[in-house]
């Protein structure tokens, strides 16, 4: 009997030991990373503070947040807790006339991983070696400080790094490099031989700080974005997003309110992340599809029947002719001005909606195919050669939509049969409305691709990465070709058409770029200086119904767009400018773009 009982006890202990061993395995190996990175949040204290706020013991008196001492004592908290409440009052903040307690302030982070090692984050520099962000170490107090040399203009690209508010943009995406985790540690020699300071890598961006700052100042408080690309390499020379946030402000309420503000979105990078209807600038894509198709037919027929070049030319040009009237056409598309009889050239120059809606419906799925060639409907990696980084711009959508991110679904395209079933939507898409949305970066890529004879280059942001001691180059970027969209002849013809837009079309009233003493300028001393030809396309994108309820807000002005490149004959830089709710593209976006291009050409 006793032996049997002993066995029962033994089994109990074996089970206990097994459970312990399994949980050890679970905690130490299976869920290791998860546990190590979980924050501790003091829920008890947070609840207490919330209770105190609800009971009115912590309240606001005008601007100040204060404690009602009498009530607090009457509450009968012990001395330690009461003191802690008094100390924590600085973590209460006002938002929309309500008082909140910042739970983040009582959370504890496991900073065990870093150990005694201090990481001196690497600097971020622009293409000319000007420091944009750097970390400094105060050896006496042993304190690290992250400094941003430039204010709000660089924030959308560089982002910020903070222990409390996390990190954003390149500071986040390149964290593995900036904190020196990508290779064996390199240590800095300091006064204290026992403290290790790990050096992060130095990152050089393709951004040109001068252009960036110039463009940011030109936006002058308007909401919007500017992207400048190098046509031949695809380097992103500037990516401005306004309004922006100055990461040098002291961490605290300003930060908290900024990052919680979903309306102004100071923290957003509109250049890579915001989707706008591209409006008339999308017509360049439709036109390229139309011209390229007829170009293809001409080439095929000329090789088959040995037609003369002149015949082919006339056929390619003839194409479709539409009568643009003051009434809405059959797809409910109207124009502000009546353009009369227009062909493709004329339609692009004057930006005729009715013409493009018709050829858009004729092209149908082919239009989407060409748009995808330019980069629509897929994410654009901003550091395409580093496969371990996922620093990508939001996918622009051409007649497709992004499924809910939470459901994990990707981009859904508008299927072929639907093109015939619902031509009105396709017609609206062809003039850059409704189901077509694009990031400023995407529209700059369209301009760059046309300027680059139809070859689409993947835009990139990081030029090179060096180890912190400047010893070894870890990464050096090269142009990456995404594909070829249109034939060279098509691109050439579009290029000349876009130049004519600026000469006699919608952009004819925009200021010109003069060459004066080898410099490009828009305000010359001498009006007889030679004028540089610039190519571009304006756009005025109606801000559809934001709330998706079919009602267009009449108070909302249209977005002002411009895409273009310069010089028109031998393109070097491409640009996309959007100014939110600023009306006609030729009035707001185009002058800004021309000035930025003049400045960018001066490099």
């Amino acid at each position, binding site marked *: *009997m*006793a*032996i049997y*009982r*002993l066995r*029962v*006890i*033994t089994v*109990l*202990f074996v089970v*206990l*030991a097994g*459970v*312990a*061993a399994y*949980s*050890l*395995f679970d*905690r*130490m*190996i299976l*869920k*290791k990373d998860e*546990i*190590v990175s*979980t*924050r*501790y*949040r*003091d*829920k*008890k204290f947070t609840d207490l503070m919330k209770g105190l706020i609800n009971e009115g013991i912590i309240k606001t008196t005008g601007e100040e947040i204060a404690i009602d001492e009498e009530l607090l004592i009457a509450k009968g908290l012990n001395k330690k807790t009461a003191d802690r409440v008094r100390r924590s009052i600085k973590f209460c903040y006002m938002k929309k006339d309500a008082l909140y307690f910042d739970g983040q302030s009582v959370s*504890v982070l*496991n900073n*065990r*991983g870093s*150990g005694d090692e201090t990481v001196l984050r690497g600097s971020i520099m622009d293409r000319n070696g000007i420091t944009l962000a750097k970390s400094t170490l105060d050896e006496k107090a042993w304190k690290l400080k992250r400094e941003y040399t430039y204010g709000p203009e660089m924030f959308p690209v560089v982002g910020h790094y903070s222990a409390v508010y996390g990190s954003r943009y390149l500071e986040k995406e390149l964290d593995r490099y900036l904190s020196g985790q990508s290779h064996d540690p390199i240590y800095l020699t300091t006064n204290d031989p*026992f403290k290790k300071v790990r050096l992060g890598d130095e990152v050089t961006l393709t951004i040109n700080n001068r252009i960036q700052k110039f463009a940011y100042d030109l936006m002058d408080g308007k909401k919007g974005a500017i992207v400048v690309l190098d046509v031949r390499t695809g380097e992103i020379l500037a990516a401005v997003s306004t309004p922006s946030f100055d990461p040098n402000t002291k961490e605290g309420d300003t930060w908290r309110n900024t990052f919680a503000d979903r309306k102004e979105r100071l923290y957003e990078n509109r250049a890579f992340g915001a989707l706008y209807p591209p409006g008339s600038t999308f017509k360049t894509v439709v036109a390229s599809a139309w011209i390229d198709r007829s170009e293809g037919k001409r080439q095929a027929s000329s090789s088959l029947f040995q037609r003369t070049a002149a015949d082919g030319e006339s056929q390619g040009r003839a194409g479709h002719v539409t009568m643009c009237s003051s009434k809405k056409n059959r797809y409910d598309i109207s124009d502000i001005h009546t353009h009369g009889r227009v062909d493709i050239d004329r339609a692009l120059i004057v930006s005729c909606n009715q013409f493009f809606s018709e050829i858009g419906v004729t092209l149908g799925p082919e239009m989407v195919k060409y748009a995808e060639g330019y980069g629509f409907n897929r994410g654009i990696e901003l550091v395409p050669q580093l496969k371990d980084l996922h620093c990508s711009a939001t996918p622009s959508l051409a007649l497709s939509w992004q499924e809910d991110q939470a459901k994990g679904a990707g981009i859904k395209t508008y299927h072929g049969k639907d093109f015939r079933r619902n031509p009105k939507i396709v017609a609206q898409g062809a003039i850059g409305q409704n189901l077509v949305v694009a990031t400023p970066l995407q529209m700059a890529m369209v301009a760059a691709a046309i300027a680059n004879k139809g070859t689409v280059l993947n835009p990139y942001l990081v030029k090179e990465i060096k180890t912190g001691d400047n010893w070894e180059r870890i990464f050096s970027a090269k142009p990456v070709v995404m594909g070829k969209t249109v034939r060279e002849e098509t691109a050439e013809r579009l290029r000349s058409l876009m130049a004519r837009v600026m000469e006699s079309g919608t952009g004819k009233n925009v200021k010109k770029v003069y060459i004066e003493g080898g410099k490009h300028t828009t305000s010359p001393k001498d009006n007889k200086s030679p004028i540089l030809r610039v190519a571009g396309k304006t756009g005025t994108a109606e801000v559809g119904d934001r709330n998706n309820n079919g009602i267009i807000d009449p108070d909302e002005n249209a977005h002002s767009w411009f895409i273009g490149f310069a010089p028109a004959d031998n393109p070097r830089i491409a640009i996309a400018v959007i100014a939110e709710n600023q009306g006609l593209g030729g009035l707001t976006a185009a002058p800004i773009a021309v000035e930025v291009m003049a400045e960018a050409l001066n490099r």
Partner: protein
Amino acid sequence: MERTSELKYLLPVLLVISIAFLLLQSSYGDRNIPISIATLKGGLDISDYFLTPLPNAIHASLFVALFMLTHIYLRIKLPGADPFILPAVALLSGIGLIMVLRLSPDLAISRNEVLLSVFSRAPDATITDNVHTLVQMGMRHFINIVLGILVLIGALNGFNKRAFSWLSSKKYCWVLLSAVLITVTLLFGTKINGRKLWIFGFQSVEAVKLMMLFFVSGYIYEKGKGIELYRQGGFKHWLGYAVPFVAMWFFALVPLFIQKDLGPTVLIFVVLLLMFSYAGNRSTVTMLFILLTLSAGFISYNIGYPSIVRERFDMLLDPFGRSEAMTRVLWAISSGGLMGTGIGYGQPHRIPEVQSDFNFTAICEEMGFVGAISIILGYALFLHRCFKIASAAENVYKKTLVVGIGTLTGMQACIIICGNLNIIPLTGITLPFISYGGSSLIVNFLMAGIVLKISGEK
């Protein structure tokens, strides 16, 4: 024969422990522990305790010598004793000593920093200045191990046949004595960390645990057939049958209200239940008690009295939201990984009360999954040998006593290990043979001595 195989197992264990001492010493140099620190009571030379190569060299050689001498003593006096008990004890107490030696400078330094910062802001704060105690912790633990070995040898000598019969005949004496001890402690005890648990530097609850084992074994032995006799005796003997359970409640509930801690309560309850069950208690009664306890816990959680029950259960269910200590423990355990950070290279001093309650966590962090599993295996070996010895022992008293000792050690280890791993509510009891704490260590060695003695007398 037994002694030769004991040597065969003891030597590798001592070798491993010696290597660990070496690693410990090298980590002192590597971590750049300051030679002296400025405390509130003036300068304190830490190097006297740790930094010079001598102390650890002395510790290592003394530790090896101690266990070798015990082995030789066993060879002469008690050649038939079980060969696995001593290696298991050596492994566990060796790792414990290394852990305490490793923790004490870090704890002292970080404690000193806390004290300095607190007193610089509020000079009249009430906070215990225990930097000196923490610095001397390693030394004291070593002295306790030496004392423990002496007690073990004393037990080998003292617990002869007459002693066992005397122990068993004076069974009610133990209940009285423990009651007296608890009363005296409550009246005249020393207060440490706000709890009155110590009398003459000895934690009385540890002694009470042992007395409880003596009492229960004596009670079961009384009629030769153990509880079964009362059980089959019918209604007449209901009082006799009820006595041990009343004693169980007494022993179990006293520490809950004195010590304000769940650990000893659960431990004593479970151990006594298992011992009664072993002695032939009805399975239905055992089950009833388990159900009663679970429902008592449930009710206690819902009404919130004693408050500690709800506190600890909240901690179990949501460690990352309710308990900073538990969060830190989980972080420490997880950062260990498979092989650990290495002795002296983790940061276990970030955990409060790491030297006593969370010793296992420190082992997990610095010795990894492998080290933690070897600790569990060490206890499993001890337990297995106890049960083997119990089934071979000659009379019921000894059988019950050895099973009691094994169950107590094993259950104590289980409760604190599972508590550390956040499987069951955390309770503050020591890890046998490992945790810092003189009384618990000495009582554990005494128990090991009794087991050895019983195994040798065949």
